[in-house]
């Protein structure tokens, strides 16, 4: 199945829910409205032609000057069809993204990582807590307004002043 068909197939079914779609260097990307996100997940997983059964990664991107601020990016692949797709939803701070753990179990850790690094919460996640950082950590390290050296405290004398 050629790459154009994936985007066509999705836009046939989700016409006006698609914010943006396109292809760059052969990577197909779909930006979907948050309300239709779960529906899209169900569609791309169970549709026989698309069959995206293998979730590779979930990650966040912080566009600090944009509104809504965050992109949550899902990289998907299909084992049988051997094609790939990138799905994105845009959320603002404090808005919860529906968890996809019910579709792809592997999203458990990657969603925790996204929460840990960006503070994006996932609705319906079985156990949403930090994964890399300490449970008592303040702030979300991969946000653009978080200093690279961290904040100054007892353990980090070289950090930036709060």
């Amino acid at each position, binding site marked *: 199945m050629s790459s154009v068909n994936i985007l066509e197939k999705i836009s046939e079914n989700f016409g006006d829910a698609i914010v943006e779609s396109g292809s*760059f*260097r052969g*990577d197909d*990307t779909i930006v979907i409205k948050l309300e239709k996100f779960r529906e899209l997940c169900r569609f791309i997983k169970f549709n026989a032609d698309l069959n995206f*059964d*293998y*979730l*590779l*990664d979930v*990650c966040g*991107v*912080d566009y600090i000057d944009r509104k809504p601020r965050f992109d949550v*990016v899902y*990289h998907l692949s299909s*084992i049988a069809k*051997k094609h*790939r797709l*990138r799905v994105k939803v845009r959320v603002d701070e404090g808005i919860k993204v529906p968890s996809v753990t019910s579709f*792809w*179990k*592997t999203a*458990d*850790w*990657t969603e925790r*990582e996204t929460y840990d*690094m960006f503070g994006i919460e996932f609705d319906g996640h079985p156990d949403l807590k*930090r*994964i*890399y*950082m*300490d449970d008592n950590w303040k702030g979300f*390290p*991969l946000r653009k307004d*978080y200093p*690279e050296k961290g904040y100054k405290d007892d353990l980090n004398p070289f950090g930036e002043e709060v």
Partner: protein
Amino acid sequence: MEGNYLEAGLVGEQEIETREMTLNMGPQHPSTHGVLRIILKLSGEKVLNADCVIGYLHRGVEKIAESRNYHSFIPYTDRLDYMAGMSNNLAYVMAVEKLLDIEAPERAQYIRVICAELSRITGHIVAIGASALDLGAMTVLLYGFRDREMILDLFEMICGARMTVNYMRIGGVSNDATDMFLSKCLDFVNYFPKAVDEYEQLLTNNRIWLKRTRDVGRISASDAVALGLGGPNLRASGINRDLRRDEPYLIYDKLDFRVPLRENGDVFDRYIIRIWEMRESIKIIKQCLEQIPEGPVMARESKHCFPDREKVKKDMESMIHHFKLVMHGIVPPVGEVYRAIESPKGELGFYIVSDGTGKPFRLKIRSPSFVNLESLNTMCTGGFIADVVAVIGSIDPVMGETDK
């Protein structure tokens, strides 16, 4: 909680009072292969739940990437999966090359495949050796390290470093492979199959090894896919997925190799897949050595790739390009790419978001060890506590990559 005891077969004829026990394993534990901590919930000797706690080696590599230019991030990548630095280098530079839409010259592609496969062998040697050591078979590790030493010597010969290689460059490789390297490589290729025979002699038909690994830590194909398991672990469960064959990159489509497959998805299958993959890697390297053409090892893209070292000293243009590349780095177009390769541990991918400046706006590493480790709970639950170390060894997590 009574249900759990029933399931674990601990409530028998006579009612004994049993209690669920929580046991902390790691982060300093010789069998967790790094700073991995597992909270085990036990009922007697049966594992009810294995909860991984990671992040002890978290260095914030993705944050660091956002303040480095594209070239200067290369050394950080070989510190991820330090058992197979070349593969990490390769995945990263290929992601940047995809973003820039350039390609390495053919000779460089051959050298890259040789190095990637050598690093696959080193990774698998450590995986097999360390997991055998955990189960009490020490010899395999010693034999393995004897042979790994030869590969590390080869790496030293080609780039000057043994583990933190920093060899791949955007658009090619840093040094050309000398005839000396190629002939030493051929010597190794001719020698190594016998060494694999030795490992197999020690393990494959060893009764103790079989008892400890057969039907231990099983994971079904559907679970493996749902949990995103990758690489040899996925193929041991019967899912035929190998990016080298499915989405051929570099020159893999010109090479003849087999993708080993097993169906049980137990510790033994994950072991034997690695053995077979080492043999296939040898086949691949051998073909590369036969086919490798002459030519440049760096793309002629002066805005993106480093010029020839000698030319920098003599030629004004080259010196300016070199200066610009070092001081300002490359400036890719606005866009985002995801590029993955088949690393020894599974699909290793880099997702780069570029905003058109000299530094990545966002760089995400899809590290196979991180995702593979997620399956540990499924593999361990219902098994014995003594098998937990066997399962960890068979997953082959490298914490440098898991924690990023």
